[in-house]
């Protein structure tokens, strides 16, 4: 076999490979996340965790649309203290864990961050804006000022790599990326879902109980690539690409666009958990065929043309 290197380092977090699950996808239990890791992922990402348990929105919370799905889960999660034990179980199995967190105030973000840092999480991903919770005020408005303020507050409170997950539902994503960098973020995850809506013509009504949902899957891919391009032109910190990656070719495109690692969500619906293995094998094949020996060599190459 060839000497291909797939290992990456993102803001101080060392991983065996750059592929992981997206937050909220199979992240509700240690048992399911263990399966994600065994399927090949370099690390696992939890469901976004808040201070208290939330049941999320009533069904329907997911509907398939052209090129992907809309979901309005509404951040169901068992709360940080409960999930701390699941993180401990994963750490007991030596699985790298990124805990995704949210809060309704900087203080709440810090409290949740501390609980998960204590449980042994290897990094935190701050979820400022998820289009499925609308104006419930369980999240801060993700304007640059808030992003900077909360990021630096969490950064000061815990001694872990801090990743900021950005939403594509903003006028200028670069402003948010700058704010993350100023706040001390160690990396940026781009992107969360794109706000959308589905109507049923026959019943003449919105389908999701929450009316609005977040678009993910192949239709999101060009938007995610555009966001990553804009961000990587302007900021120095690494980027974890997310949005519509289904095949190894998509993954390679994200790396070429400037992503140092990638997350997979909706593709698990289309391709099953085997998608992790397929993407890793495909990326390896691409590196080999094109004469690269290290996955890090191709990051951002598309900017150099």
């Amino acid at each position, binding site marked *: 076999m060839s000497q291909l290197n797939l290992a990456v380092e993102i803001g101080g977090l060392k991983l065996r490979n750059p592929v992981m699950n997206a937050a909220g996808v199979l992240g509700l239990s240690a048992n399911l996340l263990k399966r994600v890791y065994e399927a090949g992922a370099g690390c696992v990402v939890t469901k976004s965790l808040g201070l208290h348990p939330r049941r999320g929105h009533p069904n329907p919370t997911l509907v398939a649309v052209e090129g992907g799905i809309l979901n309005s889960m509404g951040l169901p999660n068992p709360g940080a203290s409960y999930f701390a034990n699941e993180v401990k179980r994963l750490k007991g199995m030596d699985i790298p864990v990124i805990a995704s967190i949210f809060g309704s105030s900087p203080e709440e973000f810090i409290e949740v961050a501390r609980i998960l840092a204590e449980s042994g999480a290897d990094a935190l991903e701050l979820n400022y804006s998820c289009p499925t919770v609308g104006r419930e005020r369980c999240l801060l408005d993700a304007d640059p000022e808030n992003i900077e303020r909360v990021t630096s507050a969490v950064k000061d409170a815990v001694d872990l790599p801090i990743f900021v997950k950005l939403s594509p539902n903003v006028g200028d994503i670069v402003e948010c990326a700058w704010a993350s960098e100023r706040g001390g973020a160690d990396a940026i995850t781009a992107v969360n879902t794109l706000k959308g809506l589905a109507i049923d013509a026959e*019943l003449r009504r919105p389908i999701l109980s929450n009316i609005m949902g977040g678009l993910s899957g192949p239709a999101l891919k060009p938007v995610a690539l555009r966001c990553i391009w804009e961000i990587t032109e302007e900021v120095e910190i690494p980027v974890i690409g997310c949005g519509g990656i289904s095949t190894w070719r998509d993954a390679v495109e994200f790396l070429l666009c400037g992503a140092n690692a990638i997350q997979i969500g909706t593709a*698990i619906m289309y391709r099953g958990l085997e998608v992790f293995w397929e993407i890793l094998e495909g990326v390896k094949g691409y590196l080999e065929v094109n004469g690269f020996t290290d996955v890090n060599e191709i990051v951002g190459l598309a900017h150099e043309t």
Partner: protein
Amino acid sequence: MSGSPMRPELLRIATISRVEEESRGVKTLYFSDRLCSEARPGQFLMIWAPGVDEVPMSLSTISRERVSVTVKLVGEGTRAIHKMRVGDRMGVRGPFGNGFTISGSRPLLVGGGTGVAALKPLLEAMLADGVEPTFILGARSLDDLLFRSHLEKLLGRRLFFTTDDGSLGFKGFASDLAIRLMGERDFDSVYVCGPEPMICKVFEEAERRGLPIQASLERYIKCAVGLCGSCALGPFRVCRDGPVFNSQQLRLVRDELGRTRMDPSGLMISIEP
């Protein structure tokens, strides 16, 4: 039809063509849908009562002309489904999940409560395959026995009744009779669907006798496509890896089976007796 490919996860609107009152609080709703006509026994649908809820239901009839779900009234969502009349429209996603695999030639089928709904198309497929199933139909009381005359026609003397109150057939739980029959007769496989404590008992007995079993389980279903994780059962997703689990898989979740389940927020809670 629009040019869209037939993807089970896409929502369709189905018009109810017939409603049958099966027993106290249980109704069967018939409709037609091409994808559902091609479903495997044991697969389930997400039924959307617009404005109320979307809930998982097993297919209780699978045929080219029409399909059905059999719904027990337990809460708000199922109440909305029960209110539907012929001509009303509901949303349908699916079929989802793996369904049963027919193996062996002398199977024992054990159905309790609305669990019988999932076993009915399996039984029909078995009979079409020339398999000779024995069926235990269990319920609280005589009036709650589902598909009684239909099953009698199909099975004759290979149908056994159990009622908790003894109003018909064996007095006791379906699992009690299942354990007894497994001792008296020569089965080569077991299929079970019903309340989880019942499934547990049947599973343990099948294990003692080295009989392969397939059990259809229930957990909280949100996405139904294997993404959200709300249906977690050990390392499995009930919506995608299940809802039918075999002996080997059930052994892996022994500590959860009949004891705990994940609630809609992701907390593990105990299953009330």
